């Protein structure tokens, strides 16, 4: 039998086949389906009005309200109520306003286990490849038409690109910097339809929440899924989240790649990606001095305890620049509890930061993070496209928590290394 990589093995097992190869279309059993509040109600409408069948495995389906930590107006309240009633009617899991970011909630609630198939309405769903899943984003009709009634979805098996990272960074770049840099290195649309296998000593040495930042970039380089083979760290991590058993799958050592991207990350500097696209990424010096009025730790690229720790390291005993608003958004209630226990809530508050409820933060400016055309923000968010945060002329800079904190101190994009 041909050697297979991890996701090929997962797709084969989930579709009852001995093996799959790139290009094969399979109908696979889905273990977890994550829907968010911006499109859950549309999926619900298709399911109720057109599919009209019972939900086959309601416990595998979660609705997570992460774009709204609270509805800002009546229309949004109505949309959330439709989502909520849908979950209750079918017995699906409901994680209401204040639960946290959809992907973090999925992990924290034990829904993400190595060796499983995870689908979601959010385009960053491939992030769960960090825990050894086959994870991909789908549209509403797939969710409503095949996953909810039958627990299945069709997938075309992708070709896989190996992304091998090695080296010891000498320039104080953190994993978020390396991930931003890698987005530029692969390029927007550089991996359309592909699976990305993140590997190499750099990845292996990272903890799980830092590995998380790599499959996260998959969608914005055009990929279908990204993954990291599970190891002891992954297994121990998932066991702290759930009692459910799981069977990880591992890539064969001689599995075949369509191509290989091999990078020495030793000399990567802290990075910033400025609007209009993620591909517009440069070492921080390239944007240093550009004014920012807003700073945020939150969104798919942030809101982790690691981010709060980085910001506190720089901000402890200091105060942010006059006129800068620095919003801190935990990715889950668990992260907020950790921040309380570690004293980070007080440290960041004293530095002038404002704590927000666990959520996706200013992602698409649903109930925070809109900007006027003259304003700019630096954040750990995942995207910087025009109009995503208010005016299409407003600018979003994406960076690590270190760089966000240093920039909030100076009132402009700033190199964090002078504080480290």
């Amino acid at each position, binding site marked *: 039998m041909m050697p297979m990589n991890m996701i090929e093995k997962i797709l084969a097992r989930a579709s009852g086949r001995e093996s799959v190869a790139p290009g094969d*279309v399979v109908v696979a059993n889905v273990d977890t389906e994550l829907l968010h509040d*911006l*499109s859950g109600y*549309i999926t619900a409408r*298709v399911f109720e009005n*057109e*599919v009209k069948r019972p939900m086959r495995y309601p416990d595998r389906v979660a609705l997570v309200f992460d774009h709204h930590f609270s509805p800002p107006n009546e*229309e949004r309240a109505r*949309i959330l109520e439709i989502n909520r009633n849908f979950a209750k009617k079918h017995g699906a899991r409901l994680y209401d306003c204040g639960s946290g970011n959809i992907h973090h909630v999925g992990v924290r609630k034990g829904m993400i286990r190595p060796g499983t198939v995870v689908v979601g*309405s*959010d*385009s960053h*769903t491939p992030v769960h490849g960090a825990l050894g899943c086959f994870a991909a*984003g*789908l*549209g*509403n*009709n*797939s969710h409503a*038409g*095949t996953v909810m009634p039958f627990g299945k979805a*069709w997938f*075309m098996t992708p070709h896989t690109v190996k992304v091998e990272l090695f080296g010891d960074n000498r320039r104080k770049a953190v994993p978020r910097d390396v991930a931003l840099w890698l987005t530029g290195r692969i390029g*927007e*649309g550089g991996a*359309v*339809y592909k699976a990305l296998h993140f590997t190499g000593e750099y990845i292996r040495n990272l903890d799980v929440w830092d590995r998380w930042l790599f499959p996260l970039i998959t*969608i*914005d380089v*055009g*990929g*279908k899924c990204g993954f990291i083979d599970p190891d002891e760290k992954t297994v121990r991590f998932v066991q702290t989240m759930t009692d459910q058993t799981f069977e990880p799958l591992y890539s064969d050592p001689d599995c075949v790649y369509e191509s290989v991207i091999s990078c020495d990350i030793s000399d990567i500097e802290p990075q910033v990606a400025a609007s209009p*696209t993620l591909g517009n990424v440069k070492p921080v010096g390239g944007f240093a001095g550009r004014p920012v009025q807003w700073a945020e730790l939150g969104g798919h690229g942030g809101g982790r305890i690691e981010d709060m720790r980085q910001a506190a390291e720089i901000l402890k005993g200091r105060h942010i620049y006059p006129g800068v608003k620095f919003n801190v958004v935990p990715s889950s209630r668990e992260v907020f509890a950790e921040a309380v226990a570690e004293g980070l809530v007080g440290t960041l508050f004293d530095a002038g930061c404002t704590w927000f409820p666990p959520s996706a933060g200013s992602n*698409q*400016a649903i109930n925070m993070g809109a900007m006027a055309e003259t304003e700019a923000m630096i954040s750990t968010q995942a*995207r910087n*496209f025009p*109009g*995503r945060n208010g005016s*299409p002329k407003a600018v979003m800079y994406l960076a690590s928590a270190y760089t966000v904190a240093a920039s909030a101190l100076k009132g402009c994009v700033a190199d964090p290394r002078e504080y480290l």
Partner: protein
Amino acid sequence: MVIKDRVLEVYPDNVSAELIAHTRYITALTPQILGDAAMLAVDPDFHAKLKNGGVMAAGWNFGCNSSREWAPAALYHSGVKLLIARSFARIFYRSAINIGLVIMECPNITEWVKRGDELETDVATGAIRNITAGVSGKGTVLPESLLRIMTAGGLMEVLKAESGKK
């Protein structure tokens, strides 16, 4: 399925789903509003051009970034008959098939079609004939199972037809 119509415009690489169906319109509750909003952030003249042709051509990675099904849905409801791109972003690709928006990949399409050209495209064979310029090309043919979903008008139509049979 053979589609004979004019090219309304040739769009560039990396047109984002966020711009095809802008965030401002994604709470649109009717197909009409969504269709009217299609492509406005990319090309304000889109709807005027659509009167002269129903075929869109585009570069690499069309529909990238956001997963929003509103993007193919907006094009579908705007009245686009066929969308040919050098490549598609995969969620867009999948959602387009699932809602019955007729799409085709052709890796060099932007090199030999321009606005106003009349094309005759056979989705089942991949044959694309540029009648105006007198040249032909070949698009990628979908696997049969997916072609069936797309040409039947989408996944829901297939599922309804199948459950009707049982």
